[in-house]
């Protein structure tokens, strides 16, 4: 639905984004991860048509985003900026009404009412946005990005600094949008959020250093260890376990066994049961997404750098 092909963006002599190719498909949420200064916001801005790439292309449904096509294609994108950017002296409804007109929506009042209901903002419709809490402002910002029902959503840290309740509302809303066929790219520092929400995770540090489903990325760093939690003391089963791995150990209430071949796990379980073991849980040891992220980032010798922009 929206695709970046070999995007490069330079600011003077510095390269902010280097050779980034990424496609976000219909009904998909992709989480864009990366340390500060990794080029996440620059990438989102290029995809939103706000800044032009130094080279490479952005296409939306096959149409290249250019100065000529920009105005029409931007109508298909909902862009949530990192800062709310609301007109503080205007009410929630007035803010949304201006944007409804900018997007030339038919029946704007009806659309706004529906959006206010969806985001539980109806009782704040006549409140000036300058008087709202951060969470409420973020909801209004999200309402603004979703107002024209765009098929593509680009969201820069949508849940940053929000309380768990609002965060859950945002996640639910994004899941709904995905179900409705939206292609969604979410920039975030929150790895838990990425794991919960995203179909794929893209790790960026100037270049795209990894892309894939969270589970597949975690699989990359899997140790191959199987943890078998048993009733009682696992020490009595260590002898059986060592038939499969000479270095099997006891890890708390579980046996930790290195299994080179995954297909041998059922045989291990049978052997333990035959030896009188009462098995409570068998699971492969998987690293957390955070560990994968840190590994990838460190592997590429990455350090935080300031973004080339005013508002960070």
């Amino acid at each position, binding site marked *: 639905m929206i695709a970046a092909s070999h995007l490069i963006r330079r600011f003077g002599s510095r390269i902010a984004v280097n050779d980034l190719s990424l496609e976000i498909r219909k009904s998909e949420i992709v989480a864009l991860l990366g340390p500060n200064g990794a080029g996440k916001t*620059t990438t989102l801005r290029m995809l939103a048509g706000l800044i032009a790439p130094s080279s490479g292309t952005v296409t939306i449904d096959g149409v290249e985003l250019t100065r000529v096509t920009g105005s029409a294609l931007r109508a298909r994108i909902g862009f949530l*900026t990192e800062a709310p950017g609301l007109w503080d*002296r205007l009410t929630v409804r007035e803010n949304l009404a201006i*944007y409804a007109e900018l997007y030339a929506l038919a029946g704007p009042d009806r659309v706004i009412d529906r959006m206010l209901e969806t985001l539980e903002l109806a009782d704040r419709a006549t409140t000036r946005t300058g008087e709202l809490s951060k969470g409420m402002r973020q909801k209004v910002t999200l309402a603004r990005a979703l107002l024209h029902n765009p098929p593509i959503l680009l969201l820069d840290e949508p849940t940053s600094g929000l309380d768990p309740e609002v965060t859950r509302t945002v996640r639910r809303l994004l899941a709904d949008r995905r179900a409705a066929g939206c292609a969604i790219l979410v920039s975030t520092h929150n790895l838990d959020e990425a794991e919960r929400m995203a179909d794929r995770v893209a790790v960026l540090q100037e270049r795209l250093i990894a892309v894939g489903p969270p589970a597949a990325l975690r699989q990359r760093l899997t140790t191959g260890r199987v943890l078998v939690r048993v009733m009682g003391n696992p020490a009595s089963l260590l002898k059986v376990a060592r038939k499969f791995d000479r270095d099997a150990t006891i890890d708390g209430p579980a046996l930790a066994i290195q299994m080179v071949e995954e297909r041998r796990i059922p045989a291990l379980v049978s052997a333990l049961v035959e030896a009188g073991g009462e098995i409570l849980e068998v699971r492969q040891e998987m690293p957390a997404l955070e560990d994968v992220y840190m590994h990838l980032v460190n592997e590429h010798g990455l350090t935080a750098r300031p973004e080339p922009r*005013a508002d960070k």
Partner: protein
Amino acid sequence: MRRVRALLAKEFLDLRRNRAALVPVAMITVLSIAIPFAVVVGIPAATGQSLGDDPGLQRLSAVVGSEYELSPNGRIELFLFQQFLMLFILTPITGAMSLAAHAVIGEKQTRTLEPMLATPITTLELLVAKVLGALLPTLAISVVGLVLYFVLIAAVSDVGVFRAMLSVRSAILVLVLGPAAALVALQGALVISSRVNDPRTAQQFAVLLIMPLAAALVGQFVGRMWMSVAFLAFVGLGLFGVWVLLTLLSVALFERESILTRWR
């Protein structure tokens, strides 16, 4: 057009909630009304001397009103009211320029520019809305002031002066030169606003735009020049042309990505 209207609605709502922003325009308008009447009515009343007794003013005022049967005093009043009419039309622009100078850099500073630029709005639409957003409230205040100016002239001036003020020259000043000068000044201020990093810088540069107009006014006051009807019409139309060019220039100079990425 719908997007221009939308942004204009935003500008007016914002101004309605922040009326203090219009105070400079209103104050300049009030002063522009008060000064001519202080000169034409207040000073003669305070000194006990009629304007018609001043040979210098008699000489300067010879350029106006020859087609009307006016007393020497009335002719001087007509001369002064004509001069101040020009001042009256042009000075509120200086107040409006602070609005225009703040238009782009202000949106940037409050971080409202980026989401707006992410919509389908074109640069031309944005800039036209910003100019009209500063111009229309100013014009509204000016029109009220203008009505008051003419009502007061009718009330206090010599016989025939009010009628003489209702001339083609006044009409060109009010309908052509004033709006054209305002458009040029505001568009210029907007160009500056989209190229600088600080509203104060924008405002200071913008005020410079009024200097040529001030020079022309002073030239008239001291009798070094007198702008005829034809000349005023020519200048007014020329200014409309300059405004069109400035609009095109401001679109060309408005670099979305520089504004978003380089401003600090």
